[in-house]
């Protein structure tokens, strides 16, 4: 398997994840509509759609908020910013991702964003202290590869959709637990709980593994997409 094929597979996988979750959502809403009430099913679908759009639009900021990643002032950390520029040029990205710093002693780095043009790379202060320039360059190249391969896109989508379905399942489960009691509703509750539990665990892990494989393959020899 060449790097090119791996990237292509990754993109295909992104589409499958997105379509799969949309399908799952439709099935769930359909079930709710059939078993309980059509308007409830429609309401769940609309709510899920709004929530998903909001989460996708806000994902960039949310990740930044959770990690406490701070944008770097203009004149600061020039050597690091230059390293990031160089690996981005080497990867053929149209623009250099923004650089953000996390005040944390543990050495770590991450990439976030839906498109290469609006992505950023976060680096902890612990990593800056722990690594010499060349090793830091390798880490940055790895994160930039995540952005170029659209791994960040895949992960954002997977996380948002898993979150939406888990939330819907939770709401449904509680509504049924405290609301009307009949056998059909009980069966639906079981299905909801199961469906809510499954995507919450498996796909996120499989995505992480698959995408990490691609990114670590494409570390330094920056190849174009084809």
């Amino acid at each position, binding site marked *: 398997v060449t790097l090119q094929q791996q990237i292509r597979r990754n993109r295909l996988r992104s589409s499958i994840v997105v379509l799969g979750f949309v399908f799952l959502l439709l099935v769930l809403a359909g079930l709710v509509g059939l078993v309980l009430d059509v308007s409830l099913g429609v309401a769940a679908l609309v709510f899920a759609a709004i929530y998903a759009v909001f989460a996708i639009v806000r994902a960039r900021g949310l990740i930044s908020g959770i990690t406490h990643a701070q944008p770097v002032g203009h004149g600061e950390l020039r050597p690091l910013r*230059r390293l990031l*520029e*160089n*690996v981005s*040029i*080497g*990867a*053929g990205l149209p623009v250099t991702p923004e650089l953000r710093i996390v005040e944390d002693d543990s050495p770590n780095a991450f990439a976030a964003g839906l498109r290469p043009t609006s992505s950023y790379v976060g680096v902890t202060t612990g990593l800056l202290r722990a690594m010499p320039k060349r090793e830091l360059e390798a880490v940055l190249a790895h994160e930039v590869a995540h952005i170029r391969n659209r791994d960040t896109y895949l992960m954002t989508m997977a996380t948002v959709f898993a979150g939406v379905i888990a939330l819907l399942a939770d709401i449904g489960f509680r509504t049924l637990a405290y609301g009307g009691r009949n056998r059909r509703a009980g069966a639906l509750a079981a299905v909801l709980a199961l469906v809510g539990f499954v995507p919450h665990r498996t796909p996120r892990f499989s995505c992480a593994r698959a995408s990490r494989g691609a990114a670590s393959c494409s570390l330094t*020899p*920056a*190849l*174009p*997409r*084809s």
Partner: protein
Amino acid sequence: VLWVWLLLGAAALLLVLAAFGYNRLVRLRNEADTGWANIDVQLQRRADLIPNLVEAVRGYAAHERAVFEEVTRARAALQQASSPGPAGAANDVLTEALGRLFAVAEAYPELQASENFLRLQEDLTDTEDKISAARRYYNSTVMHFNTAIQSIPWVLVARPLGFREKEFFSAAGDTAAPEVSFTRAT
């Protein structure tokens, strides 16, 4: 009647494949062109830094006229080179000339310590790093594009369709053996 349909189906399939293949060639060519534009930007930046650098050194070593002229000539040659092959050669000539300029500068500790000179030197090193990063990307896009148009079936029609092989952007450093030193740096 059946074979007519089969023939029509095969023709349609071939047409679809041809369209996809053609689009792929166009995409690969555009990627290579973008890659070259990336290098060109950095080469231009490198050329822009040089007058200031020459002025900085001239302030201390006005008599080293031959070196300044050599650097200025090499810079002009780089700015005139418009395609990857000549630009790569001109860039190498400039690198050599700059090496001599820095050798001259080494005789003047005051110059070496000046803020302006250090900044220029740092910018120049950064630009050189960026040129080599852009070169890595460009050469890989060229490799993919050339492989595509040299492979069957495109090798038969690439030229009439206006697809020409692209030049690699090579640097002298590529072929030189790495220097190995067994004395320990302190």
